[in-house]
């Protein structure tokens, strides 16, 4: 009845989604282990401090820093005989790997779990979160990715045992070439307490810079609607919505966003929603706690000056 949590590391930094996965795993099993795939065993030591983990299993190989889904899934499948559950936080890292593990183990994984109802029953969103489905897994091994916004993030305070696994890493049929990292001094989008998000209404990449200035003033992360990404105002990793990131900050400030279903899906659980728009009839306004119908640019500039 043990659960294994796949930990996502960036260098030695633990992704917040992995802490949510530990919490979800603890709801399923009294015995939670973690698995780390890394190029440097030293990176795994921080994982042992996450509360709720018994043993951190570490597989180290120089190729694992930018591991392919094919290799990661084979390594994971190789240790799953000891576990009934594999849990990971929803992110591009896990969504790339977990379904491949499912194929290798002949298991149907469940994506984006928002609630654990019982040992094999879960709630997950369909149709951009407009429908919530309660689903029951018929598999004996259960593979889950869980929404990081739906589970508490397990904090430090544990002292798990570190166990290095010696396994040979198979040959990969793909090779890492490069990573163009998004450089940002701002808080990370999915874990930020405040987000200032811009939409098509901003009109240009130059104008979108106002959103970034306001975000800096409020110590907030920057987000964007799909329309703003499609228009080339900002890169896709800032996209909030059904096919982008799902966020639930304390404050979500939507500027020039009309509020397509797909965008609402990604931010509707925010605690306080502010809408600044020049279109009083946009669907976004119904979602708002506070609405300012006005000229966008004047409003954002006034906020930058007063904040």
């Amino acid at each position, binding site marked *: 009845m043990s659960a294994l949590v796949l930990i996502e590391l960036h260098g030695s930094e633990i992704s917040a989604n992995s802490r949510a996965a530990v919490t979800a795993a603890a709801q399923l099993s009294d015995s939670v282990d973690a698995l780390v795939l890394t190029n440097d065993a030293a990176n795994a030591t921080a994982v042992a401090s996450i509360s709720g983990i018994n043993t951190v299993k570490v597989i180290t190989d120089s190729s694992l820093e930018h591991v392919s889904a094919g290799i990661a899934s084979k390594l994971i499948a190789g240790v799953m005989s000891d576990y009934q559950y594999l849990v990971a936080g929803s992110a591009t890292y896990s969504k790339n790997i977990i379904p491949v593990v499912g*194929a290798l183990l002949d298991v149907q994984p469940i994506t984006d779990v928002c609630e654990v109802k019982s040992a094999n029953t879960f709630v997950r969103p369909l149709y951009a979160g407009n*429908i919530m*489905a309660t689903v029951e897994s018929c598999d004996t091994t259960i593979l889950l990715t869980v929404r990081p916004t739906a589970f508490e993030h397990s904090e430090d305070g544990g002292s798990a045992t570190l166990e290095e696994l010696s396994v040979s890493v198979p040959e990969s*049929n793909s*090779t890492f070439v490069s990573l163009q990292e998004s450089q940002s001094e701002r808080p990370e989008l999915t874990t930020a307490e405040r987000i200032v998000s811009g939409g098509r209404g901003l009109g240009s990449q130059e104008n979108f810079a106002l959103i970034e200035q306001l975000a800096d003033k409020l110590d907030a992360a920057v987000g964007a609607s799909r329309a703003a990404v499609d228009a080339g105002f900002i890169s*896709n990793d800032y996209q909030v919505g059904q096919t982008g990131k799902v966020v639930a900050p304390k*404050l979500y400030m939507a500027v020039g966003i009309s509020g397509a279903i797909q965008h609402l899906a990604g931010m509707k659980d925010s605690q306080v929603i502010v809408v600044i728009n020049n279109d009083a009839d946009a669907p976004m306004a119904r979602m*708002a706690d*506070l609405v300012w119908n006005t000229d966008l640019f004047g409003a954002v500039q006034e906020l930058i000056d007063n*904040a």
Partner: protein
Amino acid sequence: MKVIIPIKRVLDPYTQARVDKQTQMVDLTNAKMAMNPFCEIAVEEALKLKESGVASETIVISIGSDKTVDTLRTALAMGIDRAIFIKTESDLDLQPLHIGKILAEIVKREDASLVVMGKQAVDNDNNQTGQMLSGLLDYSLGTFISKFTLSDDAQSIEVSREIDSGIETRRLNLPAIVTVDLRLNEPRYASLPNIMKARSKPLETIELSSLDVDVSPRVKVISVVESGTKDRAAKQVSSAKELLDELTQMGVL
């Protein structure tokens, strides 16, 4: 090289999904249906590969009841060469593992060296099928791609993947499965002459029951509810100072 593009017919993404009170399932009767937007991008990419001489033949596959043929015809009208229709009972709930197994059969039969497909379908939002297909076939995998280039020796492809930390570039040996993200391209519309031409393009029908694939459900849907988006108070403000004061009072600044 032969390119296979699996596509899915879904509820039109601009339509609100509703739950049928009687069946307690999402109501799709008389609903407006469309090709999954990510599948359109996959079709477009395959057409570009054909136009640039990389693809020798483009083949779309879809799995479903009779109406699925409409979606296949749409892809043919966009310019795809031929279609394979895997026909199922109308109420069959197929999951990504099943779809992956069905697609694996066809990819092997066709001996295709590249599969281009959407990263997720906007109905079930699973984001799994391409990954599972790569696991079943042990083909290389590039998920969430926003750029695609064939190597000079035509033995591998280079893809840019949109991941949480930025853009990762990987080289994939062929055969490969790629799943496409939004920014890869802008799908074309089918022209009227091409819609007419599509009617005479080859469309092969295969009964699902003729394939050796176990389709017993692995995940059962117990119930569905409309989560809706709760309307909020929408208090109007008229100045930056007023807005900031409100936010401070709410304790979110």
